Structures are given as C-alpha cells and as structure tokens.
C-alpha cells in the first residue's frame, strides 16, 4: 500500500496520551470501573476517561464557558497529540477523516429533557453540536487542519473505515497527509441502547472467556497521522492493507461462521501480500459478548486454522469505545510493533467449550512483524487493517 504512519494520538480510560496508555497496557492495568461523569441511572462498569469536561477544557486551553461535546473534546486531545508527533509541514495538501457513532449526543440528552416537555425550551447550544460533522469541524478548527475533512459513521467499525478511506485518499493522490480515526463519548443514550440489547456485562468484561457476560462500554479517541512512503518524515510503522466486508446476516448480531469477519481478514491479507503465518499478533474486536467472540473465533479458525497467532482484545482494558475503538486499537497495534509486545487479554480464565482459542494471558515481549486489527460493527460492517514495521 505504501502508507507510513507518522503520528499517534490516543485518549482512553487508560490515560489521555500514548505514554499513559502504553504504561497501562504493559502493566496489565485495566481502565474499567465505576462511572464518575456520565449521567445515567444505569450502574454498569464503564471504561470512562478519568477527566471531567472541565478538566478536558483546561487541558485543551479552551474557555470554560464554551459549549463543546465530550466527543469533540476527546477527539481534539487525540488529534492534537498525533499532530505533535507527526510534525506536518505547513502549506501541504492535508485533511482530517474522522468518525463518530453518537456525535454530540452527550449534550443533546440534556437539551432533550427540556425540549421534550416544551419545544420552545432547551438551550440551543446544547443541540447545535449534535450531528457527526460537528465534532470533526471542531477538531479540525482546534488543530488548524484547513483542508479536506469528512466524517464516517459505520457504528463500531467507524474509525477503522476512516483509516481505510484516508489511506485511499493518500494512495490516489487526493491528499498528501491525513489524520484519521474516531471519537466517541460515553452517554446515557448508548449505555441504554446496549442495556436494552442485553449485551452489557455487569462485571468487568471477559472477552473470549467461557463465562463472558457481555461488553463494557468505553469512551475515547484514537487517530493516526499518515502519508505516502515517499513523503519525507519520520515514521513509526506502516499500514500495509485494509479491507471492508459485510456480514449480511443480521442488524446487530454476527453470523456463527463469521462470514463478514472472515472476508475482511482474508481480503486484507491478500492485499498485504502476506500469508497467515506472517501475522504475529491480532488485536481482536473481542467485545466480550457471547455472540461476537464466538463469531470472531470461528472466522479466525477459517483464516489461521489451528495456528492462530498471539491475540487479545484490548477492550478488556478500555471497554468498547464504539466508533473510537478502531482508531484506539490502530494506535495499540502500532505500539505492539514499536515495542515488540503482545498485549494481554485481561480476565481470561477458561476456554470456550466450542474452541481451543486461548488469547494472550499476559503482556509479553515477542517478535511482532505484522499486526492485524479487527473492527466489526452493527449492520454487519467488518473491517480489518494490517500494520507492519518499517
């Protein structure tokens, strides 16, 4: 593909920069716990970013009175970090490809309380940032990205698709530099949505464990800055390939044989020119729901047979940050390559009855030449990205 990665930015319940996320991943320290800031009656464990909106305003140097959705604040933190590392020259043809699944819903919820009683009420500034593009525009404005910008929204695979689309913009010469990823804030809307689907675990999630009881929602943002190989600049890894396929099975559930996941992984492998045995670590989608993890292991078996590489779901650290997950995990995949580490799949104890899959139990130093990262979403959207060393 010829795309190199020149900047990383991540915000999660593990911390608001790459260094703190790396530290937690290394030490097997989960960010999942009791909610502090999200306003909801539900009491499920969450992967909440440990800073209030006021803290985030301060970290970003924003005026305290300014109304900005948490989604946009988290995104701005991560993009700012990615650009600090990438050092994009001024005056170049660049852009931002962002993604979100809830946009400014965290503020809309407050607006709607009053508006639903009387349509003349509710502060408009709480709903002005509702649509997906609003967070992208804020981030671009804050970070001074003046060129092309767009927003994708394909549920939980959003930021993986943003990275895939952005890589194509570079490949075909539409842009010379691009920042791509996604951001999502916790809100009562999504917590209730997943609760109504009965797929939230009331305990910290246990991806791929026989006793797994569902997912924990998380929040955060993950972005990578990229350019073509021949563009000057220091890179930390490269994006070898990516593929998007659809499961075409059910609105929310994944097929038992992991058809969509299998197609995405196999097409990404084909495009990278790699063989299955060249993949040393798979950052799994691994939400912790009985359905996803079963389907994903079935797809893995179809691709790798009995020789499944070291693999783990870092959602056991961060919770599932929906649209942001693919971007956060793209950053983690690059860190796995840079640090030659396979991250732990926390809280795994027992194999599923149906499979012998045992994910990585502890974060370990290993030879990591290529990393595969899976992101699957509602609507059967399955996307796989493959990263390599320089």
């Amino acid at each position, binding site marked *: 593909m010829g795309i190199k990665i020149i900047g990383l930015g991540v915000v999660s319940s593990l911390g608001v920069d790459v260094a703190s996320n790396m530290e937690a991943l290394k030490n097997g320290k989960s960010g999942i716990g009791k909610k502090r800031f999200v306003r909801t009656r539900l009491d499920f464990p969450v992967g909440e970013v440990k800073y209030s909106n006021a803290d985030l305003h301060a970290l970003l140097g924003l005026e305290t009175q300014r109304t900005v959705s948490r989604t946009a604040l988290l995104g701005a933190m991560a993009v700012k970090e990615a650009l600090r590392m990438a050092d994009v020259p001024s005056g170049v043809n660049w852009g931002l490809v962002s993604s979100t699944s809830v946009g400014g819903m965290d503020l809309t919820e407050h607006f709607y309380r009053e508006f639903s009683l009387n349509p003349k009420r509710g502060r*408009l500034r709480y709903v002005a940032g509702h649509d997906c593009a609003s967070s992208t525009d804020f981030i671009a404005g804050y970070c001074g990205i003046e060129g092309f910008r767009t927003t994708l929204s394909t549920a939980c695979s959003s930021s993986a698709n943003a990275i895939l689309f952005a890589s194509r913009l570079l490949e075909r010469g539409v842009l010379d530099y691009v920042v791509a990823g996604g951001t999502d804030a916790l809100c009562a809307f999504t917590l209730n949505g997943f609760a109504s689907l009965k797929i939230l675990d009331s305990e910290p999630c246990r991806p791929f464990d026989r006793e797994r009881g569902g997912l924990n929602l998380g929040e955060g943002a993950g972005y990578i800055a990229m350019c073509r190989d021949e563009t000057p600049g220091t890179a930390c890894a490269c994006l070898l390939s990516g593929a*998007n396929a659809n499961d075409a099975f059910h609105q929310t559930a994944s097929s038992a044989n992991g058809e969509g996941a299998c197609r995405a992984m196999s097409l990404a492998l084909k495009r990278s020119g790699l063989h299955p045995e060249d993949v040393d670590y798979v950052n799994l989608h691994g939400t912790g729901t009985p359905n996803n993890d079963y389907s994903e292991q079935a797809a893995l078996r179809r691709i790798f047979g009995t020789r499944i590489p070291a693999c783990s779901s870092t959602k056991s650290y961060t919770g599932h940050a929906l649209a942001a997950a693919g971007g956060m995990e793209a950053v983690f995949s690059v860190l796995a390559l840079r640090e030659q580490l396979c991250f732990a799949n926390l809280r795994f104890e027992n194999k599923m009855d149906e499979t012998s899959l045992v994910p990585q139990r502890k974060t370990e130093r290993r030879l990591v030449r290529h990393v595969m990262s899976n992101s699957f979403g509602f609507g059967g959207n399955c996307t796989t990205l493959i990263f390599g060393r320089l």
Partner: protein
Amino acid sequence: MNLRRRMGPGMKMGVSTAMAVLEAFAPYGETDAIITATGLGCIADSEKFLSSMLGLQEQALNPTPFIQSTFNAVGASIALLRGEHGYNNTFSHRETGFECALLDAMLLLDAGEAKAVLVGFFEEATSSVSAILDRMGLTRGKDVGEGAVFLVLTRDCLPCSQAEIRALSFEDEYEDEGIFVSKEMSRYWAGAFAELVHDVLVNAHEGEEQVIVNDLNGQCHSKMCLRCLLQE
C-alpha cells in the same frame, strides 16, 4: 419481513429507493459495494429512543429504535436484504457527505476494488428537527426537506449510463458558473447536492456538461462536473 415492517421513514425512503435503482440496474450488472450518506441519519428513531429513555426512567427499553438510529442502518439493511457481502460504508458529514460517498466510490472503482457501486443519500424530516432549526433561524418558515437519492457508479460506460463524472473536487475557489446548491436549502437539508445531481441527470441533454457547485456560505465546499450521455 420483520425488518421492513419496523423501518422508520428515513429507512423506508432510503431502502426502497435503493431497491428500485438496483432493480433498474439489474439487466446491466451487479453492484459490489454500497456507500450511503446522511445528515442526521434515522433521527426519528434516535428521538424515539431518547424519549422512551426519559419516559421510562432508563428501564425496559425497546432496542429497535436504538438499532435503527445508527447512521449505517440504511446501507446495512440494503446489504442484508440483498445478501451483499461487499464493501459497505457510510458518511455523515452534513452537506458534503454525499460528495464524499461519491469520492469513495470513484476511488474504489479507480483502484479496481469494485465494478459497480451503489451510492445514495437519505434524510428524514421530523417536527423536532424543524422546530430546532426554526429556533436557530435557519428555516425562515420553510419546510425541512426529506428524501432519498440513489445511483449506480460504474467504471465502464454501459448502455444504461446517463452521465460521466468528469471531475469532483473539494476546493475553496471556483469559477462563478454552473448550477449552485441553494445556500438556504443546503444549510438544513444535507441532501441538497444529491437532489441537484438527480435533477441534472433527469433533465440532461446529450453531450451537455454541467458543473454543480455546493457553495455554502459563499465558500465552495465541493464542485462536480457531469457530462450527460445519450440515453436509451
């Protein structure tokens, strides 16, 4: 089937328009990618879920409106109904989302990753959206538009091809000629550009070149040049 029965207005418009386009295209080939764009997605479902969440104090909620509130619900439903396993993507970038979907399709075709791509836009209007936009002073008493526009892009010229996309660009400057998306419309209906593309295609004369400019707030957000072809 259940899926069709549960659809909200945006889903119905989007999915039925897409199905009609696919049916018309069927004699000429099969599509292998689906790319949709929307401003607010299935906003009626978002509101329904929000409303029941508040009304029922976050207890015993029906998940259907939540599922359908996801922006990719239309693209996903088309894939599901058609059993299409190919590339599937959704943009939600207000007034330029449709152009981004077109760009994504053009890049896929250019890279040889697809032969025929279904590209579409959908948007539904609700009384709440109207009320909010009205309070923001954006509608000036006009109705908020809704609708769906779908088309198929192919790499090769087929007997059913209506026009050729000569250029699509996202630039700040443009020549002051062509067909413009009205500022007022596009401000609150993200589909104005898609609708204009549709109108140009319907009223096209052979060999005619048309430049369509999305010029919100006097700034050029995107520009597309279409050359109309002889139709069957």
